[in-house]
């Protein structure tokens, strides 16, 4: 027997906590090839799912580059004076930027 699939129209209201369901449905597609389904009259009402549009995942910005120290930072086992120009890896730059200890001196090419 043919199985009827329905999907909610745009005005479908979500089921409430008390179990009331929307009846505003419309037939959209008939699948003639299905067989062996005993429950011919079954109307499948999909659960209204609130789709949250996913924000596109931003690629992690590589902060590695050349920086100048704004205060004394402990780096490579020694203190670097204010104004020292250093080349920092992404991880190092992220650490010192968190504490406002360095500032970039040239644009990050990445």
């Amino acid at each position: 027997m043919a199985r009827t699939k329905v999907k909610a129209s745009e005005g479908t209201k979500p089921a409430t906590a008390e179990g009331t369901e929307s009846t505003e449905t419309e037939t959209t597609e008939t699948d003639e090839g299905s067989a062996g389904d005993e429950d011919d009259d079954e109307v499948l009402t999909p659960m209204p799912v609130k789709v949250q549009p996913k924000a596109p995942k931003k690629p992690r910005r590589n902060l590695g580059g050349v920086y100048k120290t704004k205060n004394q930072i402990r780096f490579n086992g020694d203190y670097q004076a204010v104004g020292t120009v250093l080349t920092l890896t992404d991880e190092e730059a992220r650490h010192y930027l968190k504490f406002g200890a360095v500032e970039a001196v040239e644009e990050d090419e990445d």
Partner: protein
Amino acid sequence: MERMTITLAADSPVGKAGQKVTLELTPADVHDPAEIPSYLAGYRNWTYRSDEMSKVVLVDNDEDKFRSFSQDDAFEPVRVKGALTGPIPEVDPRSSLDTYKVVDRYIGSFVPAVTELQRGNNYQPRMAAARRCRNALMLDRELDVCGPAGLLTTAGNWNADQVHTLAAGENWNGGASADPIAALQHAIEASAQPIAEIWMNQKLAHLFISNSSVRDHMRQLLGDGNANNIAVGVANMAASGAPIDFMIPGLPPIKVLAAKYKNASGVLTYIMPDYVVLLTTPPGVPSDGEEIATSYTFRRRGPSGVGVEAREFIVEGRGPHGGTMVVVAMADIAKMTGSNCGGLINGVIQ
């Protein structure tokens, strides 16, 4: 529980014939709940210590100037050697003036006359109001000096050379290469004047004395007993109600600030953020041009002469019976007077 009752068969001293008499009395029959007159609980913050960090200079006027000699007068070499008959090289003392302007803080609490008449046995409304006002004022002052955006805990208020950021992994909370004593020693070396005090909040103090290198240093020089006493003292600050200072050989006194406040998110947290602050704090008010502190607070003497006013006055026109307004007030401003004296270490918690 069901109460037993009897019906009097004849008139008697306890009632007339036919009257029902309940045989059992419950506590509710004999006592109406009321407030315990001898019990009054409440919270107390840990000792506020901003007046130690930024020592108070009492002043008469709201706004004035204060003079400081240049650091170059002390540190800059000049050419003093010359020929016996040559011209005399000259130097002049250099100084500059800076301005302070006090900020008024005041808060009051109104106690209606009728409320005071109906007070409890040990709840003195005016005294409670004055205490509440004083706490509000002192907490605000503490936040101004050493709070999250306080004078001494904002990196931008310091000379850049006095701010030290630890490397990744050198954090005191589990950093694999943490070396708190070396970090403190470096900050001491970078200061333009001697460090008199090292300040940290209770959390950092716990991490400091728990660090294996600090612990070994303490035990080696103080012995197990004294090292233990320091650790217990820091942990028990709340119980003692007194501020905790402790000494590690080779370092200035370490002072612990444990006072807390409720932040904008409603979370109870330490007033002092996770920085270590090193301060130059010579005793008294500088008057000979040869000593300076990291910070001074200029506080108006006011009518009381001590800088803090607590007074009350009758307000007749408020409510049907009037009442008493309790007011606590002070006016001061904390200024950074030596931004290259002392230091600030961040990156302690990562």
